[in-house]
């Protein structure tokens, strides 16, 4: 997983709601999945160039009060879920 360079599929569109939640929409299946603000930001950081350690570094800058080990595990869990749901490609 450390070598993954997750990227956003072209069919997936995103918007941020007034409360910070993200809404991801599959324009092919016309289904939407809500994400928490943190999961949404993680999804947004998946630019197809960055590997997991780089992504965690960026998350650490955004959430300085959260231990890096915690961020790392949460990022792995979230990325796995997003890939399984077809919301990210690797």
């Amino acid at each position, binding site marked *: 997983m450390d070598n993954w360079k997750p990227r956003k599929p072209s069919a997936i*569109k995103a*918007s941020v*709601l*007034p*409360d910070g*939640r993200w*809404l991801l*929409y599959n*324009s092919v299946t*016309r289904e*939407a999945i*809500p994400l928490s603000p943190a999961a949404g930001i993680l999804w947004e950081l998946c630019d197809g160039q960055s590997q997991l350690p780089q992504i965690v570094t960026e998350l650490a800058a955004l959430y300085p009060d959260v231990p890096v080990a915690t961020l790392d595990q949460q990022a792995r869990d979230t990325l796995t879920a997003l890939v399984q749901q077809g919301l990210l490609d690797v």
Partner: protein
Amino acid sequence: MYELELLLACTAPDITPVQAAHINALCSQIDADALYALAAQHDLTGLLYRGLLQAGAAELAAPLADEILELGFYYDFMYPQDQALLLAALADAGIEALVLKGHAIAHGVYGERPLRPYTDIDLLVRPAHITAAADILTSLGYTPDESEHDRHWYTANHHHIVPYVRAGTLPVEIHRALVSDACAVSIDADALWARAVPLDVGGYSGRMLADTHLLLHLCIHMTCTHVFEMGLKPLCDVRELITCRPPDWADVQATAQAWGCERHVGLVLALVSRLFDLPQPAELPRPEPRFLDYVLANTLATAVAGLPDSSGLAAAWQEQGTVARLRGMLRRLFPPRAEVATAFQLPASNTRTWLYYPRWQARLVRRHAGNAWHLLRGDHALQAQARTELTRRALLDWLRDTN
């Protein structure tokens, strides 16, 4: 009572610390269910949600979260995706279209689309392209909705053709003009197209009215087409537009004068000024206080007060004394020949117009007998409506008088 004050406070585009303190103070004085119902009545749930969050009243906002999610699904993705396909299909056929009203306001003014739901898609198309636009809709699986009126009625009487519908998406109304001829304004159609600005619709590059034209259209639509029965939402639209994109008031005044709608715009801005405590531009006419009171009442009730279907009866009832009232009613039962000729679409020179008077009188009796009976019996509520009707008629006369 405080629910309305809180709702209005929450609709501000950018809530200041002072406004936030005011909102939080009101939160403890309101009935939450009444607040949510009031927001729903005026279709302002999205703005209420935004305002409560900005003010730090997350607990009061929380019950609305699921609805906002659903609004996001439809207004951020589903509907724009359908609209992008429609606009692309029209463009492929060489048909230009301007996105109007709710869709344009949600995407082009608010930015966050779930804040401003809309119930249909309004597109302005050049008159020569109306038929071709309808054919495109048909090719995309839309069908004409003639449940209220048949298509010929729309062609003869309306500024848009029959609405087109398709399961799972919003109805589409193709406009040949911004407003109906009954509004008696002279809109420069060429200028609408020349000054139109870009609008992103689900990734497609569409176009919408320029800010001045959008503001004027909003005002005319509220005053002329609906006499303020649409509630607070369009007034919030105007406030959002003029706050986030301050207009060139000289351009607004000049364009309104050219279109003959200065009073429409002045009336709306006076109401926005009263509701949201905003300064009123000096360039535009100010309405009489009784007109402002009347439209405010309509706005809050989301209904048109008065007796629009019994205007003549209401006018006759205002006469002093029974004899004068009967004389007023007789004038309506035996109007000038020209009026009867117009009502039955007869030539002005028709020598047999007198044969139509019984049909005219029968029509009046059918429409007004019930109200007339209740007025005679001293129904106070109906008498109040009759007095209100005169204010409505005076307002419409004021709006139409562009001198």
